[in-house]
């Protein structure tokens, strides 16, 4: 069965390579279908986009099947040790080995990655996109990097996969992103590369001290052979590198821009998987290999984590863009994950791993929904959305409500357990850590959960509830009516600015504007007509979202399903008996 991890990498890679030579069925050879007549070209585009997305769906479906096969044949009795191990030398000159394996920590993340990628392609197949071949290619390469990161058991190999995602994600943001995409993409790649280089220095420091890159061996040694000072230095370097990716406050500033500007699938994968690569690094490398460094720096990690929780929540309260708010909510949620790691207890690390998965599912769903909202309304600006989504598009509104409630940590849904267990871990941190300090962290984190609930509920009250006026409380002589052209975002009017901007780039479906006209004409409120104009959840969207909803419910109601897998591995990683 050792072929499965290789196949997990080889299938998307081969899929991407085949795509380079693949011709769409319509016989349209040149990439730019611009020379044909307009309508024909548009039709061609549609055909090609669907074909490409379906191809991507097939490849990632195969990947998902492999991941599920892995999960099915995984020996849950021995989740602590790596299984399906393949270990062959690749570059002896660098001591780099092609060393893959999977244990209780990585298995859920691999499955999550495969699932989210597949759902992204399902979404794309229904939704369509510009330049589909390039997008599918990029996403498949991205998949290789993401899955590889979770499979790698060699420090340099881990780093290699960690880096592979950078370029594809850069292009996903820079080509298919929103209006400020170029700047966001550059910020993303520079920030994360800076983190990666620091990470590399830390990894090389470990290598220079121990002479090996073998993660299981290093983890089993629990820092033996490395003096405390070196461990602290290495932990700081690796921690900073991973914290950029995670992201930890104050290294998070790339995240809101990147998440906001990325296309829907990019946001989903960024939030759902890429952030997890950072936190996974803590569980896989930083904490087990450098226990003394971890013990020394855990208070700092915890402090930054809780600051991130509160900061993320406060920042969310101040956002008016739906996607940006969800992006900032990630900062807060990742704060809980990092707080869990900082406790260095099995409970805390379990919480972190659980929080990882839960965040991947919930925030993935949230970004899907935000993308759907943006599609329909032409904007994700909350004041412009008005209210009454539950009345206009009831199913979409309900799903949004569900995802938000899950994200704020309602008991019974997946988001709850990660936060609760992290706070519980902070209540009784590992021996050697200052308990009063962590009690403070716990208290602050508790405040953070309240704030989290506050901003999500505020958002819901603004967007889903209320009367379904697409223009909200805006006066009838709003500038938006008079000038359908994009106008400067600096308009002092409290609710108007920037609302029409996305029209410029996205050229959204006409119904948005029609809806606006319509509401203008029937200001007394003609909900029947507006309802008819905004389509509710479509079939492909449902197909992409239902698995996430199901898993959120499953892990919320039966958290043991996940904890049973991770616990043995966590105990082994922490060196606990």
């Amino acid at each position, binding site marked *: 069965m050792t072929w499965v991890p290789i196949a997990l990498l080889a299938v998307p890679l081969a899929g991407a390579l085949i795509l380079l030579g693949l011709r769409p069925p319509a016989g349209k*050879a*040149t*990439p*730019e279908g*611009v*020379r044909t007549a307009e309508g024909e070209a548009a039709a061609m585009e549609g055909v090609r986009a669907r074909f490409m997305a379906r191809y991507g769906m097939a490849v990632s479906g195969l990947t998902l099947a492999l991941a599920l096969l892995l999960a099915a044949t995984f020996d849950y009795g021995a989740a602590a040790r790596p299984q399906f191990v393949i270990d062959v030398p*690749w*570059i*002896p*000159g*660098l001591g780099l080995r092609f060393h893959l394996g999977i244990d209780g920590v990585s298995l859920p993340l691999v499955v999550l990655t495969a699932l989210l990628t597949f759902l992204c392609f399902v979404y794309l197949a229904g939704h369509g996109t510009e330049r589909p071949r*390039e997008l599918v290619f990029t996403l498949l*390469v991205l998949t290789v*990097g993401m899955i590889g990161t979770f499979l790698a058991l060699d420090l*340099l190999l881990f780093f*290699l996969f960690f*880096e*592979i995602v*950078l*370029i594809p994600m*850069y*292009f996903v943001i*820079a*080509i298919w992103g929103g209006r400020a995409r*170029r700047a966001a*993409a*550059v910020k993303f*790649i*520079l920030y994360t*590369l*800076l983190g990666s*280089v*620091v990470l*590399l*220095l830390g990894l*090389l*420091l470990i*290598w*220079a001290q121990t002479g090996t890159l073998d993660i299981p061996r290093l983890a089993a040694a629990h820092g033996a052979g490395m003096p405390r000072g070196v461990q602290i230095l290495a932990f700081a370097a690796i921690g900073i590198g991973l914290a950029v990716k995670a992201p930890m406050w104050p290294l998070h500033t790339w995240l809101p821009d990147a998440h906001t500007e990325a296309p829907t699938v990019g946001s989903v994968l960024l939030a759902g998987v890429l952030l997890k690569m950072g936190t996974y690094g803590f569980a896989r490398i930083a904490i087990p290999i450098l226990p003394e460094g971890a013990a020394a720096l855990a208070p700092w990690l915890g402090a930054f984590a809780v600051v991130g929780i509160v900061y993320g929540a406060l920042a969310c309260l101040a956002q008016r863009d739906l996607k940006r708010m969800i992006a900032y909510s990630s900062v807060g949620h990742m704060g809980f994950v990092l707080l869990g790691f900082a406790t260095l207890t099995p409970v805390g690390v379990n919480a972190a791993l659980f929080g990882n998965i839960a965040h991947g599912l919930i925030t993935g769903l949230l970004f899907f929904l935000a993308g759907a909202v943006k599609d329909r309304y032409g904007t994700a600006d909350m004041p412009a959305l008005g209210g009454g989504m539950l009345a206009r598009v009831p199913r979409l509104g309900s799903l949004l409500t569900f995802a938000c409630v899950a994200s704020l940590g309602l008991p019974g849904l997946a988001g709850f357990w990660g936060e609760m267990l992290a706070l519980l871990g902070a209540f009784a941190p590992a021996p050697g850590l200052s308990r009063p300090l962590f009690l403070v962290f716990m208290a602050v984190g508790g405040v953070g959960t309240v704030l989290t609930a506050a901003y999500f509920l505020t958002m819901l009250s603004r967007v889903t509830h209320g009367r379904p006026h697409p223009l909200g409380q805006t006066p009838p002589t709003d500038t938006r009516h008079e000038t359908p052209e994009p106008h400067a975002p600096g308009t002092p009017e409290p609710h108007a600015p920037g609302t029409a901007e996305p029209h410029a780039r996205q050229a959204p479906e006409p119904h948005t504007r029609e809806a606006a006209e319509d509401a203008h004409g029937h200001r007394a409120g003609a909900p029947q007509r507006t309802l008819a104009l905004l389509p509710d959840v479509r079939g492909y969207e449902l197909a992409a979202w239902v698995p996430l909803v199901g898993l959120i419910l499953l892990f919320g109601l039966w958290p043991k399903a996940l904890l049973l897998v991770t616990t043995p591995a966590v105990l082994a990683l922490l060196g606990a008996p």
Partner: protein
Amino acid sequence: MIQTIDYAAIAPALILAVTAAAVLLLDAFLPAPTPGRETRLSGRTLLGLVTLAGVLAALAAVAAQALTGGVRRTFCVPPGLASGEPPCSYVVDSFALVLAGLVLAAAVVVVLLSMGELADGRIPAGEWYFLTLCTLVGAVALPAARDLVMLVVALELVSLPVFALTALKRYDGRSSEAAVKLFLVSVVSTAVMLFGVSLLYGLTGTVYLDRLAIPADAPPVATVGVVLVLAGFAFKVAAVPFHAWAGDVYQGAPIPVAALLSVISKAVGFAGLILLLALALSEQAHVWAPLVAAISALTMTAGNLLALRQRHAVRLLAWSSVAQSGYILAPLGVAAATGPAATGASVAYLVFYAAMNLGAFAVVMHVTRHPAPTALPAEPAGALAQDSRPSTQGPGALGQEPGVLAQASSAPGQARGPSQSGAEAGAQEPGDLDAYRGLARRNPAAALALAFCLICLAGLPPGLAGLFAKIVVFREIVDGGGVVLAIVMAVNTVIGLYYYVAWTARLFTPPAPAAIPTASTPAALRAQPVVPAAVPMSIAPVPSTGDAVQVPSTGDAGPTPGTGNAAQVRPGSGDAGPVSGTGNAGPVPGTRDIAPAPLATEAPPAPGAPEAAPVPAATGATTAAREWATPVGVAIVIAVGVAIAFSLAPQAVFDLLPPAFPG
């Protein structure tokens, strides 16, 4: 008392020297090309092939030496005259073999690029190949040199022909300027180095590197000697503070010469540096290692910061290769702690760097010779669109000296129809980075190759070659405890990424986005009268824009007004060419003889047809196929192929490397 010469040891250099002589003779006796009647195998093509054969034969000789193994010594002090084992001046060991192999492999690419460069017949081919081969003789001999005199002679043999090569583009003032600059810098550096060498000789009484051991308690003048020698080599590898020449020289020189400078000349400089520092002065590591570390940090920082500001492709590559010099130097900076192993990392980086940098230069050459089509495919008013782009071109053309105009109009190959020249004038100046917009759609293969090389240089997957190279260097630095150097290099890697990725992203963005509506109409209207001025634009390089950190160099390039950014389109920049040439950019004059097939056969579409595609879809594939059959295409395939091979199996490089130490 007569030295015996091991001809097998010097075979590669000998082959190259003989080929050089043969090329010169052939050039004298070949019939001059009859104007207007180009045969398929013209004289310069023949010379190019002879040169290529010579380089390949030398490469084969190096390979044979490597396969037979062992260390070959020659030009030794006759036994009896020296105590102990007699010192030798010329030692072919694994270090020498690796570097000779690197140099010759790079030379294959450079010669192929030369065949493209010479194709327009304006540069004398015989002289060009002769000079190239002379440089290669020096480059192959230098890594094997084991005494100071041999080292200096070989280094000069590498440098001197390059001045002439740079200046061979006689019709271009910028080229002459570059040559003078290079000459002055190089001569000064040689003088400085010779002074250092003389001090070292005076101290030790020997010129043989392995006997040059300076005792630790040597007088301070030893330090002066070491520093002077170091300074001399710093010139050669364009390290700070002797880096300022790089931008102008690379840009002014013909692209193959720039590639030669950035790879072969640089490799040779590093070989000499390593030989001197690690072999001869290893005892003095505590003196030079911190110095090298500081130089390395400054070099990578200066190179990257300067590269950030460039808008010209070759200039950007020039500064980026300065930055890469910093990375190559870095392991030597911690050599005091790591010992001779540091040289291994430097050489490894050099090998990786050679492949990826040559690939980048080859694609740049290709793009320069096949410039962007003038019209936007999707733009109905294609003719107008083309006029909106010459934002950098405009000031450049205005700044051209009248002399350049005269030269251009008198240059051969200028007898072209008005539509063709118009099309060419409408094309963006090929060196500008904005000319690379949309390359992915025009020429996907070239775009992918360039993207791969750039990402390699940046050191990110999928450019694994660059990543592994950086890992090797980082590992050496971390191992040697150079924390500060490691952090500086880490930050520099990020800076470097910015401009590499910005360029890469340009390849995949649609051409000419925002400028279309701004100034098209007035520019188009004013275009007509200035067509002649626009013609030389495709030939003469544009003074670089936005290069504020320049050395006072653009003296003869004329005033460069309005070095603004590309988005700034001035209505007056109406030299953009007439409305006629919507179609293919038309062949550069040079593509005709060496590659009769590629683009020359493809007539530009009818003028004024607005919807004419740049390359008709049906013929696009065949054109692309033929495009790759040119020497430049082959060069790209070789360089990028090697870079890909290094990415997949970098172990090949590590296996090749000398065990630890030269000698």
